[in-house]
């Protein structure tokens, strides 16, 4: 029996759409091809609402709302790209760049990075804040993967995919505020983790160059964020992925030919 969902009429950027009850603004918008930028949101994972890049304006509400974490309600009027929202998004991006050490030119994810893409879309040609230039050691102890916290934006996609999809819960967030940072195995080096299954879903999900395969050179890391939604759908529908010609990583299946 197909699931019956009540539809709810809302307006996004003057377009009337039929959203589903229980759906977020972001999900509804995407189903209708309306682009709202996102970063911490990943289809198939729980909603976190951390990055705030997806902010939208809702008529009658003074504060912008995170589209990924705001459910649709009847007759909602949403604006996704006002001057105020553009300014907020750019500021958020500049703060992210100022907070870590994001040097695109020498990053494994250069050209394949959601943070970089969002910055380009937002027209972020420079950063108005002082760079914090934090000292963050790279964890290359895992035989297959590397974690470079310099490039981590604490979106927690890796935390959620590891916990919710793989069920290993290797990752956690330690500390608070600008001190918040990712840890593996409660602060042990990743290579010493006994719960990591070497599945690579965290690497596939990471939006930046913070997680990548050992041996990756600059520009070589390609993520496969769609993998999560495909896995979730496959489990739900019991429809598994078709075979591939030769052994390939999720990255390769995602269109990378390296």
């Amino acid at each position, binding site marked *: 029996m197909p699931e019956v969902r009540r539809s709810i009429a809302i307006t996004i950027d003057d377009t009337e759409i039929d959203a589903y009850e229980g759906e977020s603004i972001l999900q509804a918008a995407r189903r209708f091809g309306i682009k709202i930028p996102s970063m911490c949101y990943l289809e198939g994972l729980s909603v976190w609402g951390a990055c705030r890049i997806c902010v939208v304006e809702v008529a009658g509400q003074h504060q912008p709302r995170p589209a990924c974490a705001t459910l649709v309600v009847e007759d909602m009027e949403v604006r996704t790209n006002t001057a105020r929202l553009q300014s907020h998004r750019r500021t958020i991006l500049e703060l992210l760049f100022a907070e870590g050490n994001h040097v695109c030119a*020498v990053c494994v994810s250069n050209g394949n990075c959601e943070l970089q893409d969002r910055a380009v879309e937002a027209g972020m040609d420079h950063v108005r804040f002082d760079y914090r230039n934090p000292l963050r050691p*790279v964890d290359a102890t895992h035989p297959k993967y590397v974690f470079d916290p310099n490039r981590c934006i604490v979106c927690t996609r890796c935390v959620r995919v590891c916990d919710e999809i793989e069920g290993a819960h290797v990752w956690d967030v330690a500390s608070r505020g600008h001190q918040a940072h990712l840890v593996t195995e409660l602060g042990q080096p990743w290579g010493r983790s006994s719960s990591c299954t070497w599945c690579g879903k965290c690497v596939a999900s990471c939006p930046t160059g913070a997680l990548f395969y050992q*041996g990756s050179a600059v520009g070589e890391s390609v993520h496969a964020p769609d993998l999560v939604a495909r896995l979730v759908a496959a489990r739900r529908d019991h429809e598994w992925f078709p075979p591939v010609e030769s052994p390939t990583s999720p990255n390769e299946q995602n269109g990378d030919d390296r």
Partner: protein
Amino acid sequence: MHDLVTIDPVTRIEGHAKITIRLDEDGKVDDARFHVTEFRGFEEFCRGRPVFEMPSLTARTCGICPVSHLLASAKAGDAIMGVQPPPAGVALRTLANLGQIIQSHALSFFHLSAPDLLLGMAADPSIRNVFGLMAAEPDIARRGIRLRSFGQSIIEAIAGRKVHAPGIVPGGIAHPMTVETRDDIAARVAEAKETSVVALELYLSIADRFAREIDAFGSFPSLFLGLANDEGTWEHHDGHLKVIDATGAIVADRIDPAEYRDFLGEATNSDSYLKSPYWKARVAADGPVADGIYRVGPLARLNLAETMGTPLADEALTVLRDRVGGMATSSFHYHHARLIEILACTERIESMMSDPLLMDSRVRAVAGINRSRAVGVSEAPRGTLFHDYEVDDDGVLTDVNMIIATGQNNLGMNATVTQIAREWVTGPVIEESTLNRIEAGIRAYDPCLSCSTHALGAMPMVVTMIDAGGQPICSVTRD
């Protein structure tokens, strides 16, 4: 007490530098020094990075010869992994370096030095640049631009991008060669070869005008260091280190580049960020490091080679040797050497085009971390380049040392500037043409001091003269 004459900055070299000419009490030139005042600290921010990122990270050291850093770094990476890249990977790296030498030498000759050579050292600076060259010698200027673009397109084909290419990686090359790019290179190589022949003929037709410069632009005995092979042919990518003296006698041969620390000292200078490497065995315990002076780059490579290994370049080498009577010891001959190298590159590229190895899809060896220290060496257009890495068990850099070609020529450049100043500076006045000669003397080495190219000759030059009490007596600014 000494008078100081400062020329700052030098135009048309890659970066910022200034020169101090020290006069003695009689107003004669006592000594001259070439200062590199720009500090980039690359070694510092390599620490803590995975070794696999090093090629692209260090390639940022230079926008003119990034391929050289990619190669030296990737070779250090190969050694850290304990692998030998597949033959096709080696062939493609070799091809990339040939393209790199062509494009860098073409820039040096056609854009940076040809204005001096063809328009004359005393020509008005406002026309003594690549635009003046285009007006006076449009065919040569156009050919030079096309030659450089040929070299760049090879780099692009193999490494993925013209500048800061990510395709050269530890273990080999990231992507195999495609038929289209191979055919594109093959279609253009004949013209590149012809241009290098034309440029050589042109150079030889005017070289005799510079008899005085040849005698005074760094004409002194020194050691020459570079990569060499067992066949005695011109080497630019693999092989061992070899050192000869100004008579051609072998000083050291078959040195494993990884052992460079046993042979090379690195002196730091209080007035320059460029370290001065020197040949240890020639410097006495408390003797001056200048005793250990050696030169690297095109001049050294040609002096080291018995033959170029290709027909036209071998003829050209014979012409050079006949002109200089064997060993070329004046740095002015760097120009000539560069042109011969361009010709050799085009000939080698031409012969590689029919090699099926080039199209092999196995171009990259994959491995983990199998050694904690390794040295990678390449012959950059400007000379031998060393990358020395130490990594922890996870392949993260714990220490790094880079010896760049321009640094190794530092002692030579100082000696050259001194020699030129002694020849042309008499008293507390510097003629415009003398400024040009000092700059041209340094440019003979084609130094790359940062990633900025001042190819337009438009950088201002300030000449400050200071009296015995340290007070400036006059200042000449050239815009």
